């Protein structure tokens, strides 16, 4: 939802990042205000998932230039856990399995750590059990998932639901959902999307990283960005996604190149 004069939540400016010496993000700009839903689309290898991980602070990536302000704070100066505690949430494309650690235990530790950070009361195991079961109903998850090890032996769809469950528990300011729709069948997509929609408020924002228009039928974006070679080359409304679905990415790329040539000609003229 676009609200005039809504405060800026995150402001990414000139961001460059590399992994193992290979530049992935090249001068990327993105501004997200509270209440907005942004979709980031683009071909494989354009840097969408890298952007998600860099914003969350993955240590494998090196930020080589640029700034990221999150609610007025220098996000890049913060450790990954500090980013999480100040309200940045990453829904993982491939949630990792943690054998031996019960999901309930993991979810509670995460929830209580955030509660403590926000000066709210922590929940004991029994209170938390009631609380988390309510949230699980929304995602049509069986309570069995609480006793299983974190993501271990979960199907692709179950892992993604578990990610959205964490989003529901942690109530982030900014949720970056990295290909949450991949691996979901039609029913699971509907359930997960409904979950996400229920969590969107005028105070928070969501960045959806996706390949497919079908997710955006369920979670309607305010802005659609197209990424190519590490930067955003086109921004539009929700209609842009439909157009991409019909025409692919090549025309955006061609248009971008043409505009680039025009600019160069202007400068040289």
């Amino acid at each position, binding site marked *: 939802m676009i609200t005039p004069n809504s405060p800026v939540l995150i402001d990414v400016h000139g961001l460059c990042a590399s992994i193992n010496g290979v530049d992935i993000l090249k001068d990327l700009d993105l501004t997200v205000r509270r209440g907005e839903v942004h979709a980031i689309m683009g071909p494989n290898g354009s840097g969408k998932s890298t952007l998600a991980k860099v914003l*969350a*602070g*993955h*240590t*494998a990536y090196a930020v080589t230039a640029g700034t990221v302000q999150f609610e007025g704070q220098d996000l890049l100066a913060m*450790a*990954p*856990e500090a*980013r*999480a*505690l100040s309200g940045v*949430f*990453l829904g*993982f494309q491939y*949630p*990792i399995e*943690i*054998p*031996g*650690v*019960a999901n309930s*235990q*993991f979810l509670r*530790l*995460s929830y209580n*750590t*955030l509660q403590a*950070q926000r000066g709210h009361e922590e929940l004991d195991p029994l209170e938390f059990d009631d609380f988390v079961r309510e949230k699980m109903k929304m995602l049509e998850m069986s309570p069995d998932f609480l006793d299983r*090890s974190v993501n271990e032996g979960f199907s692709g769809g179950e892992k993604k639901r578990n990610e959205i469950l*964490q989003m529901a528990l*942690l109530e982030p300011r900014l949720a970056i959902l990295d290909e949450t729709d991949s691996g979901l069948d039609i029913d699971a997509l509907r359930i997960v999307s409904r979950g996400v929609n229920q969590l969107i408020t005028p105070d928070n924002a969501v960045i959806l990283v996706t390949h497919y228009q079908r997710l955006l039928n369920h979670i309607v974006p305010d802005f659609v960005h197209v990424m190519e070679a590490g930067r955003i080359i086109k921004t539009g409304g929700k209609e842009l996604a439909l157009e991409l679905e019909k025409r692919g990415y090549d025309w955006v790329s061609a248009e971008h190149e043409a505009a680039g040539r025009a600019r160069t000609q202007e400068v040289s003229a």
Partner: protein
Amino acid sequence: MSTVLQQLVNKPYKHGFVTNIESEVAPKGLSEDTIRMISAKKNEPAWLLDFRLKAYQAWLLMTEPAWPNVHHPKIDFQAISYYAAPKLKPKLSSMDEVDPELLRTFEKLGVPLHERMALAGVAVDVIFDSVSVATTYKAKLAEVGIIFCSMSEAVLEHPELVKKYLGTVIPTGDNYYAALNSAVFTDGSFCFIPKGVKCPMDLSTYFRINTKESGQFERTLIVAEEGATVSYLEGCTAPAFSSNQLHAAVVELVALDNADIKYSTVQNWYAGDENGVGGIYNFVTKRGLAKGVNSRISWTQVETGSAITWKYPSVILRGDNSVGEFYSVAVTNHHQQADTGTKMIHLGKNTRSTIVSKGISAGQSSNSYRGLVKVAPTATGARNYSQCDSMLIGDKSGAHTFPYIQVRNPTAQVEHEASTSKIGEDQLFYFAQRGISAEAAVSMIINGFCKDVFQQLPMEFAVEATQLLGFKLEGAVG
């Protein structure tokens, strides 16, 4: 190894202090005279001196085992002092007469010796260097016929019992270090649970090495008669010296018909510094004889300390339907080396054994599981289940598994499962993204990994073990 992980592991050893106490330390060196001296100091009967001398003769003909997957310079057995004891008053009538310096030492280690402030419901025998300095709750245990005292005292007061069982599970010439121990053992705990008695509290021995160039050679013997039950705990610490000390203990357990012995160890000997200098050589022989029908012997160990650990708590399942169990967590960091495991020897019919071993290797350490499951032709219907899991932290440590299975009865069922996992950057990032620090994440992953073993430990020990692991691995992840 990432810096996050590195920072996590490097907490100092908190038991590394030395107690300043006047001690009597025997001159270095080992000979028949040394053994006669030890025996004379303890006013031992002639049969025990014979036992020692026989062991010494056997030891002289033996060579150090070369098969363990550990490496260390050759030990100079003439450079060790075989007897070190704090100077005590001849006979202590109450705990108030124990040297206050010793009381303070053990309080600092979390083992208060005054019964009024002692660990709730745990009787403790405390061994300082070569001698037992105190045993709590003795009188209370005596009321139900339980004998719990130091080995030296048992030799003098209950010679018939000691003579009947000593060396029956681990003969004097069993192996190099057991032979050495049989020749020069100085003290240890003795525990006898008579027929039908369920020991009303956990019994415990706390071992402390204090003297720099002494070895500790203690001998523990636990006998549970028909239908008796006992849970026994063992804890160990030592000061941080830059030289290596030798700890070569022998523990024998005997369980008669329907008896049940549960033996738990939290071993935290000084492990040497981060460059591998100093630390204890922990070369220990532990074996239980499940002699009677339906008897049960269960070993649980959490091995976190020592520069080198060489230890295989075993069970000989002689009684029909007897049960042997081995639950182990072995953690190595820096340059530590561990070669540990168990032997389950099935002799009786329908005998069952369970082995659960969890090895965690961090730093540049090496961690080996070595286990033997042997089913004799007589052991009809024997069953074994073994599970060996290894976890690697960082990319410079090693985990090895050496399972030996010898089955000579076609009705036996033997299962072996093994796995290897690694705490990786991506797991830690996942936790971090949910606001959880690397320290809390590692502790959660490790505790999850060790859960099957920790739940076998008595409550206080489980808490201690959990903390110890967190402490041990602080900064090890990467």
